[in-house]
């Protein structure tokens, strides 16, 4: 017989779906099936059941041979490299719960570390723009119930946030949006044809790297001023037409992704997008929301925000919090040889950082805390597998609209495995001893 666990929260993307159902064996030790989840979310649950899963920490020697070590040895190595370093980098934090992030931050305070999360190569530019010009935003519930104009700019939820469109943005029927998709106009701005753009009423196939110009052109169009014949490869007639469509809605929302945050202009793109949103509020009600990737990258920004005032690229090396992306961001630090130890938890810089940065990690004392074998675990000296947050342990996570949701524990982790939080607490105790704090 199997029992069904309901209202499970999916620990994959920033959509943080909270309606999953998981059937587990009666002893609560094995997952049998996952219902309501997208293919990626279901795989995350099922992957925890893999028979070849690593369940004990292991260390790599210079020739690349792995040797199993105990959790105590792993704690000792991790604490020692952090305590010995003049400027350790503690990166990741996006695929874990807020409780672990808080303990990690305490370690950062004791060791004088740089704390950075995956926003540094993702929506960090959004956060810079928010600091520059503010943000008019809303929750996803408001989008379901009110939005009749949806803009996807530089993102492809059909593949990256698979249930976003059915739960929040395009299809659902809400309180004021009873006709579902029929009551909504969809604008997609993307240089590529994607599965999202196929659904669009307007697909503006913009020239790559010209988003800033197009945002500016919309602001000119809202004011009824004249435009050049084409902007970013889009004819001015289309720009005026889409501008009218945006102005004529009752409630609009711009969702944007890494197509604008990490292409040419970066934070200025978002700055301009927020300005577009602000301008549209002269005619209608508009909001803007980043399509956050990892399920709890928003949470790490929240935790550091309330503890130290900055959402990423936090420099605690001098004993007080400093922040300046470009100086205190992971890739700049690695590129400029500014760190002497690397600690990674809940992220995979090995797969997502430029190769030059990954090589620098390889050359430094390094530890990777991750349930999976990843390109990062392959370049780090120590790999510590831990229990899956949201599957084998609960904890708080923040959805892309800054709504905190408590994740649920569905099954027991393999015998003797530690959670992120348990491992970090041991490291914190040892680091305090080494530092005499």
């Amino acid at each position, binding site marked *: 017989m199997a029992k069904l666990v309901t209202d499970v929260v999916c620990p994959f993307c920033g959509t943080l779906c909270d309606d999953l159902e998981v059937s587990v064996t009666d002893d609560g030790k094995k997952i049998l099936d996952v219902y309501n989840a997208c293919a990626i979310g279901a795989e995350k649950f099922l992957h925890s059941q893999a028979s070849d899963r690593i369940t004990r920490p292991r260390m790599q020697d210079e020739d690349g041979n792995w040797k199993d070590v105990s959790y105590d040895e792993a704690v000792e190595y991790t604490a020692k490299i952090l305590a010995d370093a*003049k400027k350790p980098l503690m990166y990741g934090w996006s695929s874990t719960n807020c409780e672990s992030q808080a303990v990690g931050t305490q370690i950062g305070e004791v060791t004088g570390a740089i704390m950075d999360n995956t926003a540094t190569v993702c929506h960090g530019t959004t956060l810079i723009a928010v600091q520059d010009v503010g943000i008019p935003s809303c929750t996803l519930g408001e989008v379901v119930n009110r939005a009749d104009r949806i803009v996807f700019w530089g993102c492809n939820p059909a593949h990256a946030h698979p249930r976003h469109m059915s739960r929040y943005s395009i299809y659902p029927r809400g309180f004021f949006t009873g006709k579902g998709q029929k009551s909504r106009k969809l604008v997609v701005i993307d240089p590529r044809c994607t599965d999202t753009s196929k659904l669009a009423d307007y697909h503006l196939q913009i020239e790559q790297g010209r988003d800033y110009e197009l945002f*500016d052109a919309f602001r000119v169009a809202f004011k009824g*001023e004249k435009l050049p014949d084409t902007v970013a490869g889009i004819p001015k007639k289309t720009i005026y037409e889409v501008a009218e469509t945006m102005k004529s809605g009752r409630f609009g929302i711009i969702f944007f992704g890494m197509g604008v945050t990490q292409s040419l202009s970066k934070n*200025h793109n978002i700055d301009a997008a927020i300005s577009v949103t602000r301008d549209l509020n002269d005619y209608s009600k508009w909001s803007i929301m980043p399509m956050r990737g990892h399920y709890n990258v928003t949470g790490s920004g929240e935790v550091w925000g309330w503890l130290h005032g900055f959402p990423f690229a936090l420099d605690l090396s001098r004993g007080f919090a400093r922040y300046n992306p*470009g100086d205190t961001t992971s890739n700049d630090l690695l590129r400029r040889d500014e760190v002497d130890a690397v600690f990674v938890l809940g992220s995979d810089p090995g797969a997502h950082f430029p190769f030059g940065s990954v090589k620098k990690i390889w050359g430094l004392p390094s530890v990777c805390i991750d349930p999976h074998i990843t390109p990062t675990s392959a370049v780090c000296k120590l790999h510590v597998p831990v229990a899956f947050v949201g599957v084998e342990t609960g904890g708080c996570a923040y959805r892309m609209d800054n709504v905190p949701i408590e994740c649920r524990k569905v099954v027991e982790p393999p015998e003797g495995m530690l959670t992120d939080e348990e491992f970090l607490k041991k490291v914190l105790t040892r680091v305090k001893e080494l530092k005499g704090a």
Partner: protein
Amino acid sequence: MATVTLTPKKVPSLRLEADNITPDVFAGKSAAEIAGLHVFTGNTQELLGDYFTVAGSAGATAAETSIVIDGDASRVKYIGMKMSAGDILVKGNADMYVGAWMLGGKITVKGSIDAFAGTGMTGGEIIVDGDAGNYLGAAYRGDWRGMQGGLIRVGGNAGSDIGTFMRGGEIIIGGNTDVHVGTHQEGGRIVVKGDCKSKVGGQMVEGEIIVFGDIEVMMPGFQYRNDVDLEVDGSEATFALYEGDVGERHPKRKGDVVFGKLYLKY
């Protein structure tokens, strides 16, 4: 004018945070006292004397103090940060934050400098013979006050985000720039002798940008007005005047809307 000479004797293992290298801190101190000032490598406090041989002594005040860094400082951050008077000469390169938030005095760098030089500066001069990095004379994150006064002159090229949120003063670039010149500019003047890539004057409210070379892609919010003859930094030429960014908010003065001015040389 008393001169303090710092000769580099050790390359920092990571990067050195030396916000004490300013005439204001050095003023009234002997060579031994200056060598005993602190610097930081990450979380570790060290001494200026560990990295530099200090010769000479400082004047009684910042204005009477001259600092010479006789060598390469390309791994030394914060040179001349918040200085109010006196002068600094760097004979090699310097790292980030040269003259950030400086109030007065003069910094001369014979080599090149990295990013964030002249962040939020309100007065004084920064003269760079080589190239400058990104965010020259820009605002700190979230601040709406970039460079507000003084002069920055760069002989070579500059990076991106020059004069973001600039409100006063003048930046003169001898060579080319990367993207984003004078974004959110609300005053002051930026002169580029070479070419600019794109996004010049985006979201600009007021102030002047003068470009002698080409702009690869113009912002759609700039509109051509008329031709004007100008004398800029000692040379006379005819420029096309564009005004913008019309998408951005603009104040009214004496009944007329005030725009940012972009002059492009024919």
